[in-house]
């Protein structure tokens, strides 16, 4: 695989490593947040509804109680009794004892004349025939007014009821302290901004509103609230200031008053906001962790893959070399066989000539002479040379098959100096500084010592050759090292010679490959070394930088 392929691969892995956990993570966060927000809203709204309901009951109870009080007074005392100021005073005091909300108490005749009055103002004799509340109470028999200013120019509201005796009908009326009523309504407190108040049909405040809105002022915020509706209505709306509120409203008192409970949405959802912060924090931390993990894992995976790929290509490289060697072995066996037949013919011809010559000599046809000597010598040479060829083909055949090996325990601490001793003079002549580094804990190896010597001498000679190429007769460095390497022994031959070019490094183990001039190398050295090391169960490797030197390494299994 090329560099770019790894980059693309690692991007792919990275993308899936990030996407796969991020999608469920985001889903979980989003869904739980959504659920939380939903349940928070419904909780808030239901608590608003509950508060509205509570208030309605309280307010209605309050008003009913006031009505009952008046009813009681009207039933207990007659019109005549109550018109007596002293008794009225007495009755009023008793009422106030029962509820401080009562501000005053008055009795009116059918025509709306204020006949008797007990309270802080001087209202006796005033005529209310045209007053709104009077008209309403005559019509309905019982009436609770909106808040109004009236003669006294103070906001208040009244509760009035008609008492019908046998001979006449009269009206009893009490004024209710708006402040006290305010308290009852206002006491609902939810969060920081939760508040409750009452509006009349026209949108005027019947109680004060904490966030602004005095009695009888117009509520500019929630005009839409005044829609007629049954039961409790909830909605969300912005006020004039742009603040969003959650509303719960309910009509009271025969749909004349609207009880409003509201809370700023931001306040109601304060918990949601902190939850949001939490979610963002978790998302950032989680996301960061995922990305960091993805990077880490991707890096590890790709590194591992690269390592495996390299291992694989190294192995396949070795396989190719081994395969090529086997092929060459077979080919050379074939050659050897083919050469044997013509050799036999040459031998036969030689024998024939020899026989004929000796016969002719016996018969005196050939005289002993210098020429004759030469011919006979030449004939002997033919025999010698065909024998030699026969030897070569036999050797080739043997090489193609297996070599005789005698594995024995070899101690590199002793063995390496011996091998170096074989080339040290040659190295000295070329001015090469030869170093050897053998670690003390090096294990024994089980190999054929002469074969290992052959390999090492070959490597050392190659190194010396390369050094001379690069440096001439001074400045060469040659190092032979041996150390234990995880159940194996690593022997390395390092030189600072001319090195091997990248295109050549792939071919150096191939038979008949050489960079030496014709006649100086057969090109068989390294290929033979390679096959020897392989048969020993070892690994032969090379690293080189052209012009800087080369390192040949041999890994051999340690004994035991």
């Amino acid at each position, binding site marked *: 695989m090329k560099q770019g392929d790894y980059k693309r691969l690692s991007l792919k892995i990275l993308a899936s490593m990030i996407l796969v956990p991020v999608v469920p993570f985001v889903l979980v966060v989003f869904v739980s947040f959504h659920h939380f927000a939903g349940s928070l809203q419904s909780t808030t709204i239901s608590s608003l509804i509950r508060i509205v309901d509570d208030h309605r009951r309280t307010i209605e109870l309050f008003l009913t109680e006031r009505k009952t009080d008046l009813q009681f007074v009207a039933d207990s005392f007659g019109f005549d009794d109550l018109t007596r100021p002293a008794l009225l005073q007495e009755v009023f005091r008793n009422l106030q004892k029962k509820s401080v909300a009562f501000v005053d108490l008055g009795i009116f005749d059918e025509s709306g004349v204020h006949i008797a009055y007990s309270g802080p103002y001087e209202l006796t004799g005033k005529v209310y025939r045209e007053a709104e509340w009077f008209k309403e109470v005559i019509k309905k028999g019982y009436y609770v007014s909106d808040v109004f200013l009236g003669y006294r120019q103070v906001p208040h509201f009244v509760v009035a009821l008609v008492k019908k005796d046998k001979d006449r009908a009269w009206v009893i009326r009490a004024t209710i302290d708006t402040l006290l009523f305010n308290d009852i309504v206002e006491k609902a407190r939810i969060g920081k901004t939760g508040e409750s108040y009452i509006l009349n049909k026209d949108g005027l405040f019947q109680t004060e509103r904490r966030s602004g809105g005095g009695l009888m002022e117009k509520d500019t915020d929630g005009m839409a609230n005044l829609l007629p509706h049954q039961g409790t209505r909830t909605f969300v709306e912005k006020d004039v200031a742009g603040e969003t509120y959650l509303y719960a409203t309910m009509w009271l008192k025969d749909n004349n008053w609207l009880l409003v409970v509201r809370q700023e949405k931001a306040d109601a959802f304060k918990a949601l906001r902190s939850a949001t912060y939490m979610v963002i924090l978790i998302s950032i931390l989680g996301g960061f962790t995922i990305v960091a993990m993805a990077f880490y894992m991707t890096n590890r995976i790709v590194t591992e893959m690269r390592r495996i790929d390299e291992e694989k290509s190294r192995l396949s490289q070795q396989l190719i070399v081994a395969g090529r060697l086997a092929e060459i072995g077979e080919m050379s066996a074939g050659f050897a066989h083919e050469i044997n037949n013509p050799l036999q013919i040459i031998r036969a011809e030689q024998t024939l000539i020899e026989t004929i010559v000796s016969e002719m000599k016996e018969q005196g046809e050939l005289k002993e002479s210098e020429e004759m000597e030469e011919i006979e010598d030449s004939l002997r040479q033919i025999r010698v040379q065909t024998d030699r060829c026969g030897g070569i083909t036999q050797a080739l055949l*043997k090489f193609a*098959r*297996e070599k005789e*090996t005698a594995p024995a325990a070899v101690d590199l601490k002793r063995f390496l100096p011996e091998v170096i001793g074989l080339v040290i003079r040659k190295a000295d002549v070329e001015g090469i500084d030869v170093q050897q580094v053998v670690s003390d804990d090096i294990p024994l190896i089980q190999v054929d010592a002469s074969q290992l010597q052959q390999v090492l001498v070959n490597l050392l000679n190659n190194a010396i050759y390369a050094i001379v190429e690069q440096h001439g007769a001074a400045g060469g460095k040659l190092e032979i090292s041996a150390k234990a390497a995880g159940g194996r022994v690593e022997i390395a031959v390092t030189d600072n010679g001319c090195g091997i070019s990248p295109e050549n490094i792939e071919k150096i183990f191939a038979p008949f490959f050489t960079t030496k001039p014709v006649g100086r190398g057969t090109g068989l050295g390294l290929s033979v070394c390679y096959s020897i090391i392989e048969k020993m169960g070892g690994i032969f490797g090379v690293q080189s930088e052209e012009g800087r030197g080369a390192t040949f390494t041999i890994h051999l299994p340690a004994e035991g």
Partner: protein
Amino acid sequence: MEKDKINLLLVDDEEQFAQSISKSLEIRGFNVIVINRGEKAVEAARNHPIDVVLLDLKMPGMSGEETLKVLKKEHKSMEVVILTGHGDIDSAIECTKTGAYSYLQKPCELDELLESLKNAYKEKVMNTKKIEEKKMNEMLKISLSDKPRDILRRLREIDKEGK
């Protein structure tokens, strides 16, 4: 030793190799005696009824070739299969001439080895039969001819030959 099993003498100085081969052969119905030296192999062949010998060539002490010669000389019917890691034609020729049944080179497929050993055993059985027949023939001849002293001498000769 059981009668229906092939009695094999395994001669190899590589202990691990010998152990693993002997294990796989025992599974396949051989009685295996493992020996690591040629001298001991000759000794063992004298003391046990051996059918087939599986012989390594390169060993310390007495070489495989010599061992083969002695074994074939002392036991006419016994067959020897050579299994060597250092095979070459010269030794193959020599061994075959000396009377090795077959000449196998390591690494060798177990199937090939098994076939060779079984064939060698068949050959051994044939050899034994032939020798018995020959003995019988000779005995038939003498029983009607020579004097008692000669008969005794001849019998001794035949017995010696047939071994």
